[in-house]
């Protein structure tokens, strides 16, 4: 208690009310519902059900695709962010990358149905260069591709900020001390941007676990994530208990990922 100013509590009120109403209460409701079966009896059957082969397999495949999406998003975003910090009008270039993320996700997804179609421009190009037209839509490739596209701005932003904050004199110092480009990257740049990379992974991996419209529109339901399963349980099967149970596990996974990716700050000194 640094200050005894009673106003402090008043300032905290909006946040506290928000937290209780829109974060804690919904989670409590989800946990509560997860203990009931279809006929409203208190039960643990939903949890037993979750570990049955089908939902367990679903979880594994969700994690696998979320991993692929995060991996490729990072692979593309890191060099892009690095390049951006080197350009002259970096804020402008950054803006051009951010703007597409303001467009509704569903609209962008529908656009890809046209782009990737049998008679779409991508296939027309493949035809022209002699590869021949391919079935692109409704494959796991198209799913990962579109998801990576959608998440890239969210990955670039924190990495860009981390890179941009690096004091250029540190890089000069590294060079003066005899480090080559690779060593400078490994020992100076990378350690100073791990926090940016970690928050990038958080904002990509967690939503990727529960993507659901893209699985239908782009992957034709050949890829199914935890998000799809939750949607089905609530809207089609009307089994709110089972839907809530899957959601509880999703929340647990999210916390685990938060813990894994937050870690200690720094890491500059090896």
């Amino acid at each position, binding site marked *: 208690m640094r200050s005894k100013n009673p106003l402090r509590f008043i300032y905290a009120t909006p946040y506290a009310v928000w937290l209780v109403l829109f974060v804690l209460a919904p989670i409590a409701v989800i946990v509560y519902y997860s203990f009931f079966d279809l006929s409203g009896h208190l039960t643990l059957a939903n949890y037993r059900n979750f570990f049955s082969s089908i939902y367990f397999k679903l979880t594994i495949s969700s994690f696998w695709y979320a991993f692929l999406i995060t991996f490729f998003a990072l692979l593309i975003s890191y060099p892009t962010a690095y390049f951006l910090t080197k350009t002259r009008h970096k804020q402008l270039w950054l803006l051009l990358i951010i703007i597409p993320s303001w467009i509704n996700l569903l609209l962008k997804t529908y656009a890809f*149905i046209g782009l990737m179609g*049998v008679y779409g421009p991508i296939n027309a190009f493949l035809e022209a260069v002699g590869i021949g037209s391919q079935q692109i839509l409704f494959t796991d490739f198209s799913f990962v591709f579109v998801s990576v596209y959608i998440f890239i701005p969210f990955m670039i932003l924190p990495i860009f900020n981390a890179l941009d904050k690096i004091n250029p004199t540190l890089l000069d110092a590294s060079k003066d001390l005899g480090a080559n480009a690779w060593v400078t990257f490994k020992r100076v740049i990378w350690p100073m941007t791990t926090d940016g990379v970690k928050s990038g992974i958080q904002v990509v991996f967690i939503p990727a676990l529960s993507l659901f419209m893209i699985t239908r529109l782009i992957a*034709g339901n050949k890829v199914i994530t935890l998000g799809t399963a939750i949607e089905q349980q609530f809207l089609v099967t009307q089994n709110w208990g089972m839907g809530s149970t899957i959601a509880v596990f999703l929340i647990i996974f999210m916390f685990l990922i938060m813990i894994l990716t937050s870690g200690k700050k720094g890491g500059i000194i090896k």
Partner: protein
Amino acid sequence: MKGLMSSAFVILLVSGLLMFANYQLEHKAGRAGKDTITVYNWGEYIDPDLLKQFEEKEGIKVIYETFDSNEGMMGKIEQGGTAYDVTVPSEYAVQMMEEKNLLLPLDFSKIPNVQHIDPYFMNLPFDPNNHYSIPYFWGTVGIAYNASLLEGQTFESWESLWDASLRQKLILVDSAREVMGVSLNSLGYSLNSTSLQELKEATDKLETMGPNVKAVIGDEVTQLMINNEASVALTWSGQAADMISENDDINYIVPNEGSNLWFDNIVIPKTSTNVEGAYKFINFMLDPEVAAQNAEYVGYSTPNTAALSFMDDEITGDERFYPDEEARKNLEVYENLGLETLGVYNELFLKFKMGLR
């Protein structure tokens, strides 16, 4: 701090003004008043011109809202806070809504036009004596195919969907009962089967169809078929009618083993605040000329016998969309299987989808 306070104040003021304006607008529109009714229908399921005709004729304003699934519609009505006067559930949903006490019984003396409905479509098992519902449109589940992209397959049997020539060509609808139904029908079982043994057999058979499946999607299939992007689709008759009207190469067939016969039905939900207005609307929609105009616009089949004479022979004579009684013998209406069994269907369907590559 001062800047923060003043911007907070401005935001509050603007939100307050917007709220006030919105309230005023909605009240002017007379939401849930005496001379308005609220109609809650499927998307693309009425000729909008008819709403205007009704408003002029009866002096009742229609607020029109749409839904895209029975479950979503039922959820909204069950939770209350809405004032829907008329809605259009499918047959199994009528049964579920009745069990949950969400419907008002119909007084036929206020709907004289009900006499135009084909008796064949009245008094069906999901609503004996039409206590709560009157059929609005009906149709079948079948196969839409584009002959120009195929090698002469005609799909007289469900078995043909398993044929190796359809590798990565078939599009299925993302709905458990329709897809499980294909497999159940091909095995000669009932579409309403609750036997775990039969369902297991149907799933095993369905899984062998996997290599043929290109995608499992929703309404997007219409556009894919029209654009020649897909050649075979499991779909509803009205959706097939939409495809055919845009692309002449497409045909629709209900395989011989039988299929699903479905109905969407007009009901008055418990939430109604203008029951008299709702009756007037229902009676208006059942008027033969109105029903004919509606059916030509929507593309599904009307159960209104008198309306058929106002329609183009080319439509009403089309056996694909107006199968005769003989052809209807093989068709089965969905029963409400209960949430427990519905869960089993969906879990098996999920397993099937997860096995797709």
